[in-house]
């Protein structure tokens, strides 16, 4: 079973889709398998992470099978 990455807002445009299936494992390893420009955007200081619907810290994160990790860029003003 795979884990899933979810990209919100402009991150979905960069990723070429709103979701991507990835093999479970440490986040650092998962990111190493993605395109460089996407990784740069996903690791921006103002991008927050939600694991299965709860905000989490980025450091040391490990995804197990079935996990959903969402990348949340800053919300829009207006």
């Amino acid at each position, binding site marked *: 079973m795979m884990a899933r990455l979810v990209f919100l807002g*402009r991150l979905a*445009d960069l990723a070429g889709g709103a979701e991507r299936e990835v093999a479970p494992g440490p986040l650092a390893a998962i990111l190493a398998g993605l395109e460089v420009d996407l990784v740069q955007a996903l690791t921006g200081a103002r991008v927050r992470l939600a694991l299965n*619907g709860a905000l989490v810290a980025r450091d040391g994160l490990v995804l197990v099978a079935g996990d*959903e990790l969402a990348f*949340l*860029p800053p*919300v*829009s*003003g*207006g």
Partner: protein
Amino acid sequence: MIEVRLIEQAFDAADAMRDFAVAHPQSGGVVSFLGQVRADSPGQGDDVEALELQHYAPLTLPGMQALAQDVLGRWALDGLLIWHRVGEMAPGDPIVLVAAASRHRRDAFAAADFAMDHLKSESWFWKREKRGGQWAWVEPREQDYADLARWGQIED
């Protein structure tokens, strides 16, 4: 009464306000804020053809519900309504409706004002605008941080 909704289709804000006022006959005052899609946006011209709001289901609605509870804990309200559109909208469509009913108008004003500041700045919505057939994401505004600072609650 708390009513928090994410709405996929266009809604009639005036009908919602009428129902809300009728539902709170004991409230002397009802303050409402209606946000509607503008054809222009700051410094970007007046040619917005469409607006799209994306949300992330596991966070957006729970975030709005938590905000509603926060508001109810701060002011003496008889009722609070927070409705937010998601999906694609046209200029003139309602985006957000907040209404607060209270015995004393001061509570209703402060509650609606606070709810809007926090909805705009802390809720999980991502917005893009379509101009000349091209979609572009709307970035955060510094004004939103200034609005939050009024309540002593900058978290970022």
